[in-house]
């Protein structure tokens, strides 16, 4: 069967089981858009290519399937560089197809030419410039294989226009046809390493399971719970792992790190053993590295061997898929006597419970305007359907969402962790809703973030994707404002936005959404109820929140975690 390169590309995506892709056409990718008309794949037309990338990420994060985006050459491709970088930092499987100028024009500074494989070399797991139509099915199969196996990540396939228009004899590659002689992701652990880890775990008196996003990527939440309950160890879930272990579980200490709660941060500092599972000792978790968990031995499990010993030397380093390693640990424990150390850990749990009682997450509530932003998150949480997916951008609102939501299930939290991409929430929420239309999806966003990518609500309205957006509108770039208040002597440089400019309600309505506003605490609940009742179009709620509110606790940047700053009210209590 003779197909054009373009037809082969779309057919290859179908063969990969792609049901939806996000994109925006243009000159170099035009041939590929033609066969989309007859394809089973739903194409969602975005308003900006960055939106396509973040939508694909949101889709991937809630479904576990790779997100797919398609853009044209030049500016189309550069507009999706930020999502690629974001997906690279958060290990999200993403396949981006970009158009390229014709092979004969490459290198001539042709119209809308950009060396996008060169640009994205450092922010993709791998990328390909396809030079022959006959290579398309194989390259697409390789791209999906690389994106989804090992440590997942984004890939880019750059397709010149003449490659799309020339013809090839259709085939679909078998796994052994893939030409990846240098790609062999590690999955299964060495039995010796597992035994060594168990030995350390059996000796520990102050252990902590330090759970990162790798547990979610490996679909390992159930195995984690089994191991946690079998060992009785406390569990912290990083920003990328919220939902991997239920917040309501008595062994869950919540989120560690710069804005983690006091107990999670301090338990890691005082631990004698950290069992890091799919976590990478990010600087936002460790604070000053040489003062991080000074008395702890480390078992480090990661599917990416380059993460082992990268930041912190591990006593036992296990390269492998988290779920497989967790199951191997559980299997090995079956050979041991039961009742692992509940007595041994009792003093440790006593200390933990004392910290929890003394330093819970806290804010001073108010019954007058302005609204406390944390209260909005709590009201959203308490009025949400079970299984609601929460999506955040980057900044104060993100931290409050992570702190004050109660995450019970895996894949209910979507945010930009490693890259810290403002503007992530709106398009990622749209992608999440496309991936899980059965779930309610709430974006908790900041006013600064919202203004970066709000145009994608037009996409959502046009495509009938009923996401909900809560803007915690404090009229500031709030996190930057917080740093300027705390560390720059209250010299506020270029952080003021405005509560009224733009008018978020009118803007929402102009984009085909329902626009609501809440200005005082008693309006918060009714506004949320009203938003929850809408299911045929997007809703935006403008919550007028307190600009002076800061995220606590906080470990100042570069400081040791022991220098954690708690809420001023707790500080008074402590003295």
């Amino acid at each position, binding site marked *: 069967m003779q197909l054009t390169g373009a037809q082969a590309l779309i057919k290859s995506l179908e063969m990969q089981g792609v049901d939806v892709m996000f994109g925006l056409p243009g000159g170099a990718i035009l041939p590929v858009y033609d066969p989309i008309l007859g394809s089973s794949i739903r194409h969602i037309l975005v308003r900006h290519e960055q939106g396509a990338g973040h939508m694909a990420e949101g889709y991937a994060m809630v479904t576990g399937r790779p997100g797919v985006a398609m853009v044209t050459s030049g500016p189309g491709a550069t507009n999706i560089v930020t999502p690629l970088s974001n997906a690279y930092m958060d290990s999200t499987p993403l396949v981006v197809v970009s158009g390229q100028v014709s092979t004969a024009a490459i290198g001539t500074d042709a119209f809308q030419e950009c060396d996008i494989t060169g640009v994205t070399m450092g922010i993709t797991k*791998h990328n390909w410039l396809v030079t022959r139509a006959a290579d398309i099915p194989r390259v697409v199969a390789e791209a999906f294989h690389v994106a989804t196996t090992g440590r997942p990540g984004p890939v880019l396939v750059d397709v010149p226009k003449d490659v799309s228009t020339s013809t090839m004899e259709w085939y679909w590659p078998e796994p052994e046809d893939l030409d990846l*002689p240098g790609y062999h992701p590690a999955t299964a652990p060495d039995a010796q390493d597992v035994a060594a880890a168990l030995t350390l775990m059996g000796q520990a008196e102050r252990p902590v399971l330090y759970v990162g996003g790798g547990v979610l990527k490996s679909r390992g939440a159930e195995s984690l719970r089994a191991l946690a309950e079998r060992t009785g160890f406390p569990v912290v879930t990083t920003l990328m792992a919220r939902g991997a272990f239920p917040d309501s579980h008595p062994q869950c200490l919540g989120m560690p790190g710069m804005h983690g709660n006091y107990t999670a941060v301090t338990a890691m500092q005082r631990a004698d053993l950290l069992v890091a599972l799919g976590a990478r000792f990010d600087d936002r978790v460790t604070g000053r590295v040489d003062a991080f968990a000074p008395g702890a031995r480390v078992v480090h499990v990661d599917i990416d*061997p*380059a993460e082992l*010993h990268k930041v912190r030397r591990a006593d036992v380093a296990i390269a492998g898929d988290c779920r497989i390693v967790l199951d191997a640990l559980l299997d090995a424990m079956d050979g041991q006597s039961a009742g692992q150390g509940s007595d041994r850990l009792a003093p440790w749990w006593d200390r933990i419970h004392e910290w929890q009682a003394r330093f819970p997450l806290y804010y001073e509530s108010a019954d007058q305007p302005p609204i406390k932003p944390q209260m909005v998150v709590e009201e959203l949480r308490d009025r949400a359907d079970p299984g609601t997916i929460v999506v955040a951008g980057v900044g104060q609102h993100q931290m409050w969402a992570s702190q004050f939501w109660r995450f019970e299930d895996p894949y209910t939290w979507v945010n930009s962790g490693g890259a810290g991409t403002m503007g992530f929430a709106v398009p990622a929420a749209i992608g999440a809703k496309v991936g899980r239309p059965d779930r309610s999806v709430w974006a908790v966003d900041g006013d600064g973030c919202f203004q970066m990518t709000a145009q994608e609500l037009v996409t959502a309205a046009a495509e009938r994707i009923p996401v909900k957006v809560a803007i915690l509108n404090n009229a500031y770039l709030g996190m930057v404002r917080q740093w300027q208040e705390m560390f720059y002597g209250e010299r506020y440089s270029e952080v003021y936005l405005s509560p009224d400019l733009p008018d978020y309600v009118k803007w929402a309505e102009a984009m085909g959404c329902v626009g609501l506003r809440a200005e005082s605490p008693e309006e918060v609940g009714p506004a949320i109820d009203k938003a929850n009742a809408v299911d045929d179009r997007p809703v935006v709620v403008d919550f007028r929140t307190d600009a002076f509110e800061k995220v606590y606790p906080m470990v100042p940047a570069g400081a040791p975690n022991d220098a954690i700053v708690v809420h001023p009210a707790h500080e008074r209590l402590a003295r």
Partner: protein
Amino acid sequence: MTVAFERANAHEPSERGGERHHILTVLVENKAGVLARVAGLFSRRGFNIFSLAVAPTDDERFSRITIVVDVASAPLEQIVQQLDKLVNVVAITELAPADAVQRELLLATVEAEPDARSQVIQLVGVFGGEVLDVGPDRLTVMLAGPPDTLDSFERLLDTYAAVEIQRTGLVALPRLDPGPPGARRRHEPARLGRIGDPRSG
């Protein structure tokens, strides 16, 4: 063809082969852009390259890159693991200097007025080099050898005014009679590999 770039501290032979510099021979797919991927990785992760040489192998699917890395910039293990993540990198072998045959090529153009010419030619002869080109007052000479021999040669040539010196960066292969156990470490790309290093014995 052998390409070389970035040489620093060329006059610190005591450093070479010591703790600071390690030789990695990296078998890569012979595809467009692979050198850029390797060089880009070193650049963005802040790893320093002391020298780098790349050329095709006798199997046209693969090229071999010989990299002398500066482990003062990052632990060798981290450099190897990050390199191994590049999809086009097939195999990485670390060669301890004592356990490797190393060669580098040096070309030099030297001021040599007729009365000094014979001295230069004699020096080249002592080192086993060759005179490649002769001008009225200059000579271009060549020497292939272990890097420290080239260092000595280069210092002696400086006695005569060396107009231009070009070195290639070293290439290396394991000695056929391996040294003490553990001196040479092969970094396996993964346990589940379909193809290992087709170049290794």
